């Protein structure tokens, strides 16, 4: 006991750290806890909820949302937002369908490449407009959301591609499993891990946080803000392109309306997952958990036979809760620090 006393005397209070407390204070913990609670409660009401088939469906439903949320989180962290992703999903999904229609024998990896590059290009248009026009991304991407959708409507007209039109192997992608896990879910997890490592441990990734935290300071500091924001939009577009391909593989039909309205669900997932809407903090792991949480709510309400109408209300409450928790934590931290500083003086 004596040694601890000496230690705490030598090191000021803020130098000591408790790994457990630090872990609990992570922003992702409340979301993850909510997800676990949701699954357990639903399971208690309806044990079929955790049957292998049901778990597989759960994961499959979440997969596309996860990938979209990771891309969106990259942009939101830089204090921007991309509202055009729903339209990008639609364009890429419909494009995939028509690609198989034109060239039925096209190798699947090539289709993926084309879709990702296509999404990346659409993201680059967003990024270019945002960094050059110096107009808030909210406005720019609201514009491109309608433009991309308009292009898709003109292109698709009333045409739809059905999953039966695609090669069988392509459709199987979202059915096949690897040790019980759907292959596309594994892809999503790989995406989360790779992006998480880049964001957490690459200089360029950390720059995104700096830019979102204080864009002016980032510029003064010599961070290439334009290039980094551009990169975030391109990455978001590319990931959205990936999601668009998976959408074509997973769902029965793609057409002019595919993906519309997705953007707000994804922004909601990102915010619920602890990514601050004003940038600078949050992780893609949190955003991914947020995506899983939101898509699980739907399944769980179905499983417990609650009216679907409640789903949106619950998502709304979750968003508000995420924001309130965020504010309370930050206010409490600031107050704690102020008290400590007053004591130090």
């Amino acid at each position, binding site marked *: 006991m004596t040694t601890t006393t000496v230690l705490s005397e030598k090191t*000021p209070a803020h130098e000591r750290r408790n790994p457990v407390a630090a872990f609990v204070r992570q922003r992702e913990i409340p979301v993850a806890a909510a997800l676990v609670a949701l699954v357990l409660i639903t399971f208690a009401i309806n044990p079929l909820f955790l049957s292998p088939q049901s778990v597989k469906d759960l994961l499959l439903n979440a997969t596309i949302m996860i990938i979209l949320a990771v891309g969106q989180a990259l942009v939101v962290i830089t204090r921007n937002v991309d509202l055009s992703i729903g339209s990008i999903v639609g364009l890429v999904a419909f494009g995939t369908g028509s690609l198989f229609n034109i060239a039925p024998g096209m190798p699947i990896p090539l289709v993926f490449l084309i879709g990702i590059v296509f999404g990346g290009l659409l993201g680059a248009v967003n990024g270019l407009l945002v960094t050059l026009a110096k107009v808030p991304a909210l406005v720019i991407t609201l514009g491109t959301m309608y433009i991309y959708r308009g292009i898709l409507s003109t292109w698709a007209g009333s045409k739809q591609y059905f999953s039966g039109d695609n090669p069988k192997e392509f459709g199987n992608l979202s059915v096949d499993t690897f040790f019980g896990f759907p292959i596309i879910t594994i892809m999503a997890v790989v995406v989360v891990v790779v992006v998480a490592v880049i964001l957490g441990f690459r200089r360029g990734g*950390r*720059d995104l946080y700096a830019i979102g935290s204080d864009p002016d300071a980032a510029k003064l*500091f010599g961070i290439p803000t334009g290039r980094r924001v551009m990169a975030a939009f391109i990455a978001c577009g590319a990931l959205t392109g990936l999601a668009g391909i998976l959408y074509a593989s997973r769902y029965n039909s793609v057409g002019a309306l595919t993906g519309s309205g997705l953007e707000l669900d994804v922004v909601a997932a990102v915010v619920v997952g602890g990514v601050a809407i004003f940038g600078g903090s949050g992780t893609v792991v949190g955003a991914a958990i947020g995506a899983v949480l939101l898509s699980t709510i739907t399944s769980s309400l179905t499983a417990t036979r609650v009216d679907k109408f409640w789903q949106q209300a619950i998502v709304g409450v979750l968003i508000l809760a995420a924001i309130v928790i965020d504010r309370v934590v930050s206010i409490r*931290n600031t107050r704690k620090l102020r008290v400590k500083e007053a004591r130090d003086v």
Partner: protein
Amino acid sequence: MATDPYTEPTNAGTPAPTPVLSLLGASKTFGPVVALADGTIQLVPGEIHALVGENGAGKSTLVKILAGVHQPDGGQFRVSGDDVSFRTPADSKAAGISVIYQEPTLFPDLTVAENIFIGRQPRGRAGLINRGEMRRQARELFARLGVPIDPDRVAEGLSIADQQIIEIAKAISLDAKVLVMDEPTAALSGVEVERLFGVARSLRERGAGILFISHRFEEVFALCDRITVMRDGRYISTHVTADVTVDEIVREMVGRNIDALFPKSEAAIGETVLKVEGLGRAGVFRDIDFEVKAGEIVALSGLVGAGRTEVARAVFGIDRYDQGTVTLDGKALKPHSPQAAIDAGIGFVPEDRRKQGLVMDLSVAKNATLTLRKSLATFGLINGRTERRVAEDWSKRLQVKTGSQDYAVSTLSGGNQQKVVIAKWLATEPRLLIVDEPTRGIDVGTKSEVHRLLSDLAGRGIAILMISSELPEVLGMADRVLVMHEGRITAQIDREAATAERVMHAATASVNLATEGTAS
């Protein structure tokens, strides 16, 4: 502190070593505005060099050129003898120049360690950031600076002093040859200033060239080896500190004599306008009794935290009070209602004009007429032309220097901003004007204009209650000085009897001077 061989030749006045930084005749214009006509500064290794000048003298533009934020239109720029031209702040940093801005530019969401190393974090395997190493280096830096800051905490909520220490740690870790500090002490307390100076001196001993920009002459003279003066965007002179006096420097800065600093004019003192009786608020102030008469300037003096601003805010109705009454022109004023105070004829010029006095993004005209929105409106709509006409009228009378009434008020200098705030209140034809620190952050030349303005207003019969921490201002302007200490008025001193010593005594030692003060 040990003497450093490098500082000796500097003190002797002959900058023998190659200047680590040399800017000669740099110019910069923004459209029609010439921000810098002749920016000249030479820094030798191992010196602390002060750059002084009024606001608007071109110091900030010069700093931004050094930082690579602005590109000069002309002139010669050398670092360690080599010509340079920076296109971005990154170029400047790479050349070994670190700039600490007046407002620290940290990233609130990032940890302290990350703030120091952002963009050049130590890397380990696969080019990934080695956080342990980054933390260790940050700790080492803080140990060297002798400050206990946790490298793992986020920067949000750090005191300004700590933020500045982090900026300095950043500069040290960059191994900066040149450190530019733009008014680093503006928000620091005495102890923190000393700590900052200690760090600056040890950097000087290591051979860095430090450019120190400050409005506080005590600091300039205590810390710096040489002083460069700028005025109106031009280089004026460079002196070895030991060979000049404050008066000489001030004269060069303003281009005129300092006697003109506090113009005082006798005003006919009329009947009582404001009467405050037994005002009190638990834990903040108590037993506050005073009067302000028409044409009188009453200064509310005292140390920071004595409760002066709180009293003023209570009088104006922003804050509540528990006891006492406020009477204006014989009529009791409704407590806790700024609207009632405005209607009764009180104007309040707050201390923090950027946050509380002005809407920085609005035009000069809109700011100046903010208090008149109701009377300017016809059927609830404001007529832009009337608005501009009224604003123009006031700008002319107060000599606000602005290109157009439509410019955002944020583009004006501090002194002119203050005039807009005052104009805003004058437009309501107030009986009483409360001014809180009217010249804080305003340069010497404009200061005297603000003083002349206040003096004029008193001459026109407006009662003025002025809160000020600057003794010369209090002594020069006030007809009567009220001194507060720990929430009470400890002395009331008339103009003739007011000396710096008496005011300071009353502000620090409450007991023995209280009786003497009221007697005078």
